[in-house]
């Protein structure tokens, strides 16, 4: 109770310093749930509130965070041809991953929450918790080597244009996390498409750059680099234990390294091209390049199951999306069955392999189920999920410009969600009026 009294004493005045009061209120309600009692309606209320809801989504994302950190390190060393076993040199990989991930996480939250706080103070209402989930999702859908400047711009764009412009949490039309990714996607298309020939920077695999000495001679050779203030500090710690260290960097990328994702391969040569590089098991467990948190299917599915079991996310959207994707995949298979044309190779990829590649499950579990931007009627959720699955696969397979379809499909269906709801409600109203 001592802490409570202390906090009550330092509470800033709401009139004279609204921003400080908003900030204080945000942290105070974080530490203590309020003492308000029910008035004029029900006398007891469910223990669930928005904070608890949001934090449970963040909790189920933690598996993806752990795997993502490890995978950043693994991909880095895989490009150098080192430690091919996933759990080999575990300490180096996880340290490398965290050095990469923590700044992304911190920057995303500083920018996003900062804007939220500022708007809350300006409008004079309590801080709403919406960004807790968006902030936890944004790092997971970013490429591991995303420059922090891009991230700042993307998050600011998503929160201001995508959310605050519409009135804050609960009012937005577009999924905030996806909007930030869409911003990066369209603002930096060459880098995001994996073109490394300009700067040598490879956003999808962390810690690679052109060797300066060789570049002067006109040779473009990607090499690894480390920072003394991060990797170097850990190196000195690892040395005292006698463990393996990062070293000086400057190691060249092995010749066999392409950094190609399964989707990129599928685009060029269908399933045969994918199977040359990756096995389905590998794709299922996710030890391959991609956005930070999207690759490991089992962990994502565990998270999705937890969300459904806790009744936090809608299973209707998830099942609808699986059905939509599967059916579209089957149609594609069906229409191209029997043709020998190599340009149809992508369409001929067996429909169930589409679940192995790319980020279908991540989009399904955490992006499409956002209750604010999804359809809000139960019947609408089926339709909404189904069309995300269908449209997403069409974009993935038939569109030459974009390697993955779910981001665009979800943003596209976000726009249509109110329309779907409108027709579901209309049918309910018509039914009622007919009864009269």
């Amino acid at each position, binding site marked *: 109770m001592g802490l409570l009294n202390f906090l009550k004493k330092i509470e800033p005045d709401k009139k004279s310093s609204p921003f400080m009061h908003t900030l204080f209120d945000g942290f105070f309600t974080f530490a203590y749930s309020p003492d308000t009692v029910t008035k004029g309606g029900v006398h*007891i209320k469910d223990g669930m509130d928005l*904070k*608890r*809801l949001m934090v449970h989504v963040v909790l189920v994302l933690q598996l993806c965070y752990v795997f993502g950190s490890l995978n950043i390190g693994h991909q880095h060393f895989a490009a150098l041809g080192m430690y091919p076993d996933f759990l080999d040199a575990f300490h180096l990989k996880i340290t490398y991953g965290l050095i990469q991930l923590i700044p992304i996480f911190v920057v995303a939250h500083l920018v996003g929450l900062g804007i939220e706080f500022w708007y809350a103070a300006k409008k004079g209402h309590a801080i709403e918790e919406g960004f807790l989930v968006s902030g936890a999702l944004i790092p997971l859908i970013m490429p591991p080597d995303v420059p922090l400047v891009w991230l700042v711009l993307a998050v600011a764009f998503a929160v201001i244009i995508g959310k605050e412009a519409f009135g804050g949490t609960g009012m937005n039309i577009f999924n905030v996390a996806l909007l930030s990714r869409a911003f990066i996607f369209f603002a930096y298309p060459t880098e995001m498409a994996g073109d490394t020939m300009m700067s040598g920077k490879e956003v999808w695999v962390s810690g690679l750059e052109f060797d300066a000495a060789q570049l002067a001679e006109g040779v473009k050779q990607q090499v690894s680099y480390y920072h003394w203030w991060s990797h170097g500090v850990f190196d000195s710690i690892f040395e005292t234990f006698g463990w393996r260290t990062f070293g000086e960097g400057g190691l060249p990328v092995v010749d066999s390294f392409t950094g190609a994702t399964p989707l990129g391969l599928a685009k060029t040569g269908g399933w045969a091209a994918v199977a040359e590089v990756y096995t389905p098991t590998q794709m299922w467990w996710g030890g391959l390049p991609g956005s930070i948190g999207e690759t490991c299917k089992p962990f994502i599915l565990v998270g999705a199951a937890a969300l459904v079991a806790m009744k936090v996310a809608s299973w209707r959207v998830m099942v609808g999306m699986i059905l939509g994707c599967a059916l579209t995949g089957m149609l594609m298979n069906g229409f191209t069955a*029997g043709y020998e044309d190599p340009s149809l190779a992508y369409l001929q990829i067996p429909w169930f392999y589409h679940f192995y590649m790319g980020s279908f499950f991540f989009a399904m579990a955490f992006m499409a189920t956002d209750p604010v931007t999804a359809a809000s009627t139960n019947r609408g959720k089926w339709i909404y999920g189904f069309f995300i699955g269908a449209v997403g696969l069409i974009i993935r397979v038939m569109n030459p410009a974009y390697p993955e379809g779910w981001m665009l499909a979800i943003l596209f269906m976000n726009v249509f969600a109110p329309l779907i709801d409108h027709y579901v*409600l209309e049918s309910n109203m018509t039914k009622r009026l007919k009864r009269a």
Partner: protein
Amino acid sequence: MRSKINRFFLLFLFLNFASVASAQSSGGGSNYLLTAMAAIAVFIILGAVIMVSDNLLKIEARQSGADKSGTNYSIFPKFSEMFGSSAPDYVDGPVTFLKKGHDILLQGEAAKSTNDGAGVTTFAVQPPNFTGMSPIPKVVVEVGNEVKAGDPIFFDKKRPEIQYVAPVSGEVIAINRGAKRSIAEVVILADKEMKYRSHDVPNLADCSREDLVNFLMSSGAWSFIRQRPYNMVADPIDAPRNIFVSTFDSAPLAPDLNYIVDGNEAAFQKGLEVLGKFAPVHLGLNAKGSEAPNHAFTQVEGVTKNWFHGKHPAGNVGIQIHHTAPITSSSKVWVAGVQDVITIGKLFTEGKFDASRMVAITGAEVETPQYVKTYLGASIEGLVKGNLKTVEEGKSIRFVSGDVLSGKQTSTESYLGYYDDQITVLEEGDEYEMFGWLLPIAPRPTISGTFPNALYPDLKFQANTNTHGEERAFVVTGQYESVLPMDIYPQHLMKAIITNDFERMEGLGLLELAEEDVALCEFACTSKQPLQSILKQGLDAMRDQ
């Protein structure tokens, strides 16, 4: 018919397309697509034939009157028949299984024992209990007047023919006023020996509707008949389509009406006969649990019995109406409570206005939760006297007239609501809780799966009145629907009310709802929105129109 033609046309188009596709395929190519399309076509045609014949069968059954008993004449089993729990043996009719809903289990359920209520000495009738009544009704008694049970004490100036009468005999000791000089309550100090105003009871068999209405209005019994929509005292001019009586209350800690009706079987039957003079009476019975409802309910004659199996709010009469014969904008239905029906019945069997009530004293803060036999509008103080646990230092308790979901907050100085048969006493939750939103420190009732206690569905809670969070914009969807077993979209309805869109309000089923029906949605709401008051605002606006 047109849609069917369209469907066949599409199918035809699809088949053509498929054959073209297969024709284009190289010689070595397979005909998967054509085969698949043909299989689907055969499946659809067969399905269509079966559906049409099934529908014809059902139409035939309806026209010949064979399906009155609710037997399923379709060749397909109903969904509930396939998966639903089968009805218990005592059920003698079709059962409506309601999947949605939630039972909030609380500590302090009333034991089946009855206190004689000697501690209750004052009673009051409170005009604010009647929806839509003008704030200052005409009070026809003065402080100091002696009244008999059944003597008029006030009437609404808008509808002066409907009398509101004294529930007990005694002396009017106070006429308390509330805000803006409105009448808050008329208080009567009860006699030890009850004196009843004598009534000249019309003969039910040959009296006209007009005589019956006039008798009910002048005797005070009309106030027990309420109409839906709006849940207000019925308009005597209206011809209701049906009259509904729910014989079970599924609300948290609600009184067991099977226990209450014991010994009043004849009066209950008579009361239903009176109501039956106006419209067909529908009785909602509980098909859940191993024990059959009281024979007063199951053996009753001259009514249609509808069985319901489900969690709260299955016992709400609004839910039962929705699943029997939904309210429409052009029809009205009347409803009455079981104890109210008994009072109406006694008016005819005994010729007196006997407003005796069994009231359940419930809640975790009650020493021995049990029933009290008293009269309508009993004082809270008298009801709970000597039956409360000692309140800890620094804590306070709340008295609720009714259940914790739809009851009204009250105090020991106040009186039981006109239509209430329950008091709930619970702890106030005006305390801060460290990381209360994150850690489930104490088990608490919830519909979400994020609390460990969700794994123990039989756990009984000692709930307090804390809101467990702050009010937020609507974020979560589908939550209200999961606890409201009606074909209604509550969240969209609420938004329509907030934006004052009358057409949408009516279309989305505002008229089918009463505040008690959305109470569970309000309990479950993650955003802590005041749904009952929003709904009330909508109903008031709609009524004024």
